[in-house]
């Protein structure tokens, strides 16, 4: 690397810097850091989780989640956590932020009843930024049965703004499963947004204004079980007639994972659409199995369209469906 501006060695201005340690901006910098901390954690008895490579678990019941330079540590005993913090502080230059309160713009509120996850401040900042504070709040984000089309209405002049807003909406779905579907709808028009699309985006922002206090609540002392629900519409997208499927999983009392997505293939019947929805949700469940390293609990899986699934089991025999069905059969017997 060239010598840094205004710190060029006066006696050897022609020499260059040979990097021994990573520096911001280098392509390999994030990996170099993960290698370093990963190695350290493994030598101190942690295991990398199969569910997520930035999750490290130690059998004495505490885990670490790493998000670039932020670490979340959880554990059953405060003494263990303090020991670990002390070790990490010795090894790396770290700042102890105490109890988890703010993580990537998400507020974490502790109360004796449980833990809240909220994005109030973020949402409020965005409403101010997009000049939505003077608009009236509304109680639903999207009219039922409204189908947006890609080529009706005037083009939006400021497409960057549209992308900006949708980007922040996507970020807000981190604690808001209720926005998932409608954000999925407006994000399909990122390339050439039109007036009707922008109107829907405004509606979502007004809905957010109405529901600023909403977030996810994890109740203390609830039962640690996984519950899942899935459903799908049929040919819900008027442009390509593909179906939109969704699932939601809760762990304990609060939801941890959800999705609302257009299915990759065209379904010939509502049964097929739902069946595919179940298969996609099943893949998600497989992923949770890897978390069992940190939680040893009873499995319980409820799928709302399971009755239909059983019918489909006898009716549908095409190969791709057989494949999906076998994924399903393997996992429901977990």
């Amino acid at each position, binding site marked *: 690397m060239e010598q840094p501006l205004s710190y060029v060695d006066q006696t050897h201005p022609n020499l260059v810097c040979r990097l021994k*340690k990573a*520096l911001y901006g280098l392509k390999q910098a994030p990996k170099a850091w993960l290698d370093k901390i990963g190695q350290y954690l493994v030598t101190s008895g942690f295991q990398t989780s199969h569910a997520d490579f930035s999750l490290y678990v130690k059998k004495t019941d505490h885990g670490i989640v790493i998000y670039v330079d*932020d670490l979340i540590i959880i554990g059953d005993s405060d003494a263990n956590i303090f020991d670990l913090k002390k070790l990490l502080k010795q090894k790396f230059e770290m700042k102890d932020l105490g109890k988890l309160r703010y993580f990537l713009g998400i507020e974490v509120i502790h109360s004796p009843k449980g833990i809240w996850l909220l994005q109030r401040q973020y949402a409020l900042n965005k409403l101010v930024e997009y000049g939505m504070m003077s608009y009236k709040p509304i109680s639903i984000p999207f009219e039922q049965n409204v189908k947006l089309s890609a080529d009706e209405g005037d083009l939006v002049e400021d497409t960057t703004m549209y992308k900006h807003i949708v980007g922040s909406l996507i970020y807000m779905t981190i604690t808001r499963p209720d926005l998932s579907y409608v954000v999925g709808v407006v994000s399909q028009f990122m390339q050439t947004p039109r007036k009707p699309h922008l109107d829907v985006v405004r509606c979502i922002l007004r809905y957010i204004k109405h529901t600023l206090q909403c977030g996810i609540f994890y109740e203390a002392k609830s039962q640690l079980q996984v519950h899942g629900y899935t459903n799908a519409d049929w040919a819900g997208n008027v442009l390509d007639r593909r179906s939109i499927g969704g699932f939601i999983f809760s762990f304990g009392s609060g939801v941890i994972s959800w999705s609302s997505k257009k299915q990759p293939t065209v379904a010939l019947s509502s049964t097929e659409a739902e069946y595919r929805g179940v298969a996609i949700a099943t893949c998600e469940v497989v992923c949770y199995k890897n978390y069992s390293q940190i939680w040893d609990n009873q499995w319980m899986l409820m799928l709302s369209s399971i009755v239909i699934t059983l019918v489909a089991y006898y009716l549908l025999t095409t190969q791709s469906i057989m494949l999906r069905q076998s994924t399903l059969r393997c996992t429901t017997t977990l």
Partner: protein
Amino acid sequence: MQNEECHNYDPKWDNAMDEEMAALDANATWELVALLEDKKAIGCKWVYKVKHNADGSVNRYKARLVAKGYAQTYGIDYEKTYSLVAKMTTVRAIIAMAATKGWSLHQMDVKNVFLHGDL
């Protein structure tokens, strides 16, 4: 404030840059060597940032030296990259578990995070 020209005239940025250089030196980030023939060194630049407190007042002036990583060529300058971004599901699952079992949830923040990695 991300202006390269004006830093020379403002001593507060000098301090910030001195601080960053001290951190880099202490970390032995690089050694000075002669450039091999036919090779080109990648550039670097200073990025200036004003850190604010929650009430809007200035917390500190921060200068960071960044390498122009976009000039790196795959296979020559680097081979493996990986972005260590935790899945939000994992984060939520962890928090759900902490809530249910009444475990403690703590947070730490690494200073100069990328300077720790060895190349």
